[in-house]
């Protein structure tokens, strides 16, 4: 019996690439491009613009994201940890700059820099930086976090979150909170601290809604899902049209590019936050299951990598990325189907948008990184 020949460099990282994760990511991004085309080509054509305008841009973002993903995967994540303080400082500076007059304003939020034809949205990048920093901090305490250390994590996160709240961008802060909770949980925070934070989170949300911190339109939008039969032409309009588009898709959908709610522009912000309605209407329940399954693969591979990771930092990195994806998918898809409040959170890999797409690819890059180096 021939003995198994052990490769010389069995631990070489490139031999342990997670192809399932890459395949699922690519599939999602490709589906995203098709859906963006469906959501935008009519309107663009009517305005006399190239119907592939958004598609071409999004393809560029995906290509850029893929390159960055490779770069992030190549640099050993343990070395990345050394950059954490620098990245944190940089993120805080950029977030401060974006709310200064240097940043650009649209739809009531000061959230990005206009760089020529491109928009650079620092809060999307800040999510990845936060994951890196919180994982780094959490990993330095051997799987047990005292109350004091939990507080330390919170203070660490509070600075960028405060700056983001000034934009204001409630959605991204909710993602931040999800990341914090997940990392704290796995990093070893005590159950009673987790419980306390959860209660604080709930009380905080109610307070924010009740105490007039938000503008009325924000409150209306956030709570619209609680009373869906309200004013159909007013604040619940988005929600009503979105839910209706998805439901009209039925089992197998109206067919690709054949959704009437989609083509006729009844769903607002469809190529960005409401991209799931295109899947729901045109591809039906079958399409929705497929999409959720692809996300499930990404999440499952990330979760699995968290368990396989060589060290706690690797685990926490994966947990942070997982929390980001899961929260964004649940919040975004849930909002289009009327079970979550409407906040501006993009659907990972699917929604049109450069910073968000690239940040998601970087997140996958981190997971690949941890996966590749589980033996090294």
């Amino acid at each position, binding site marked *: 019996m021939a003995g198994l020949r052990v490769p010389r460099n069995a631990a070489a990282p490139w031999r342990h690439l997670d192809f399932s994760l890459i395949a699922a990511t690519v599939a999602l991004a490709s589906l995203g491009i098709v859906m963006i085309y469906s959501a935008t080509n009519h309107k663009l054509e009517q305005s006399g613009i190239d119907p592939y305008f958004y598609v071409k841009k999004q393809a560029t973002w995906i290509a850029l994201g893929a390159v960055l993903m490779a770069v992030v995967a190549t640099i050993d994540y343990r070395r990345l940890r050394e950059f954490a303080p620098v990245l944190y400082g940089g993120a805080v500076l950029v977030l401060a700059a974006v709310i200064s007059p240097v940043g650009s304003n649209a739809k009531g939020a000061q959230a990005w820099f206009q760089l020529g034809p491109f928009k650079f949205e620092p809060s999307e990048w800040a999510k990845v930086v936060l994951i890196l920093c919180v994982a780094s901090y959490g990993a330095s305490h051997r799987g047990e976090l005292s109350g004091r250390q939990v507080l330390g994590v919170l203070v660490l996160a509070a600075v960028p979150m405060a700056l983001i709240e000034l934009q204001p961008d409630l959605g991204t802060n909710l993602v931040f909170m999800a990341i914090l909770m997940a990392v704290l949980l796995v990093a070893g925070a005590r159950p009673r601290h987790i419980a306390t934070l959860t209660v604080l989170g709930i009380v905080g949300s109610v307070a924010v809604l009740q105490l007039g911190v938000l503008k009325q339109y924000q409150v209306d939008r956030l709570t619209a899902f609680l009373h869906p039969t309200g004013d159909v032409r007013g604040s619940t309009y988005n929600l009503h049209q979105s839910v209706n588009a998805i439901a009209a*898709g039925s089992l197998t959908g109206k067919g690709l590019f054949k959704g009437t709610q989609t083509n006729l522009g009844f769903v607002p912000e469809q190529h960005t936050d409401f991209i799931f309605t295109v899947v729901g209407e045109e591809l039906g*329940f079958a399409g*929705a299951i497929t999409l959720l399954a692809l996300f499930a693969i990404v999440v499952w591979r990330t979760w699995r990598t968290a368990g396989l990771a060589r060290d706690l930092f690797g685990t926490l990195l994966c947990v942070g990325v997982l929390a980001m994806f899961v929260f964004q998918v649940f919040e975004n898809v849930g909002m289009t189907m009327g079970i979550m409040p409407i906040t501006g959170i993009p659907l990972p890999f699917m929604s049109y948008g450069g910073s968000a797409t690239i940040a998601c690819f970087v997140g996958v890059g981190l997971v690949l990184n941890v996966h590749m180096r589980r033996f090294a």
Partner: protein
Amino acid sequence: MSLDSPRLRLGVLGVVVASLFAALLARAWYLQVVQAPTARLEANGNRVRTVTIPAPRGRILDRQGRPLVVNQEINAVTVSRAQLSKRSDVLEKLARVLVMPVDELQRKVDDKRFSPYKPVPVAENVPKDKLIYIGEHAADFPGVEGVRLTQRAYPQGNIAAHLLGYVAEINDKELAARKNKGYKAGDEIGKSGIEAAYEDDLRGSPGIEQLEVDARGRVLRTIASKLPSTGHDVKLTVDIDIQKLAEDSLDRGLKAARAANDRERKKHFLAPAGSVVVLDPHDGSVLALASNPTYDPAKFIGGITLADFAALQDPAQGSPLTDRATQGQYAPGSTFKLITSVAALRAGVINPNSSFTDAGCYLIGGSKQRVCNALHESHGPVNVTRALTVSSDVFYYHLGDVFWQTRRQNGETPIQDVAHEFGLGKSSGIPVGGESPGLVSTPETRRKLHDKYPKAYPNGQWFAGDNVNLAIGQGELTVTPLQLANAYAAFANGGTLYEPRVADSVIDADGKPVRTVAPKANGHVDLPPSVRDPIMRGLLGVTSDPRGTAAGAFSGFSQAGFQVAGKTGTAQVVNKQDTALFTCFGPFPDSRYEVTVVMEEAGFGADAAAPVARRILDVLAGHTPKDITVTGIPGD
């Protein structure tokens, strides 16, 4: 493995993640499988808008196909009130484009005569470049539209205004009655005259367009469309030339009467109104139907103002909207003697030669109640022929009296029965609406009047005097000019009472006939020669005998080849000057025209009404018409 290991905590995280995904899946299932059917319906309703395209109405043509009512397309600017209320600067901008004051524009927008359901036209005959400008800057003018409107137009002006009628916005009552015919609020509908009578033919069927629209209401494509089909044209029996002739002659006659002196009242005749009916006795076709005063139907285009509409109905201004030919009710006076004559001859109360001496006055029932001829002149011994020619009242007083005395044999209402046979006392059936029924007074109608208005009619009984009065066409008896013309037309054609026929045929937009409106006989009057001939001779004598009542009016009228039979009438009206009537037909014996003229407060039939008829007949007979003069000299 410790219970508090990262692995366990990852497990907890995994469970949370799995339940979140499960929740999304469950929700997707609920929406896309359970709720899908209703959602599909709603999504469809979102994108499909149904628009009705009104069909151009058909035209109204005269008997030779000459247009009386047509459609004209105009460029107009309309403003939607609902959309305007949100933006106050739009009117100012629009006023600049249209070069008109903002106040005027605002007044037009607020104009109550326009439908609340439709955009209000604020400017008409707008130059094309301005329409294009507004179209190109649609975003600056929300609710403002440049459109082509179809409106009624009247190439012949006021001609036959009453007969043609007008169109206006449908009201709630009409809408309720016609909902299943596809009418909607804001639609136009024929309100009177031919426009109303032939509404179903003229209207056409509106087109329906199903449009796919986007979320902003912009039209993307037409899903399905049914083109509107233009309404059918209605070809009338009326001849424009005869109609004009009738209207013109009537107008001249009324003016002449106003210039004449009423010797009895020592003032000019008021002659405020009148009407002319020209029928073809062969089939009841209406050749002309004139009513004076008249109005301009163009006032109704695009909606009439309340003030204008009130003026058209104001009695002080002669109620121009009233069609006196079909709606005016007048005592027929001596023109009714045709009926009394037929009744008497048929009942055998007299024979053609029965003579009665007209001494100028008559004592009813041999009593002391004395009734006299209008001028107290005596005609000597007269038979029925002579009595008609010279219009002897006494002869007919006597007949009325005799009928009353012989009511056991002849019944209580022998005269009225014949009147009914001639179509009096009930609508002639002309399809044009609003016709008055007139009244043939009987002991029964008297009783009813008394029961209803005990003060105005203190006595509910019918006496010999009432019969005497009835015999010469007075009392409560009333007829419309159309009924009178129709009765004489029936006599002229040998006894067939036709329903007056105004439309000859309905033809489609390509000129192909859709249907022909056949003549319709409503009854038959039994007129054996022994009855008809002596009466006919009497009526012929009216215009041709030197002592005929209309001999003066017809002096110089060449009867060769165009013999005219007629009857004058002068009806007394309480507190008013006399109504002048004249009804005639010719050329005898195969009469093609029946002409009836009725003029309110114009004096004597022979003096005021007969010259109008004569002028019409002059033209119809190919003579040169004479000027009309009214002398005020008493006649009948």
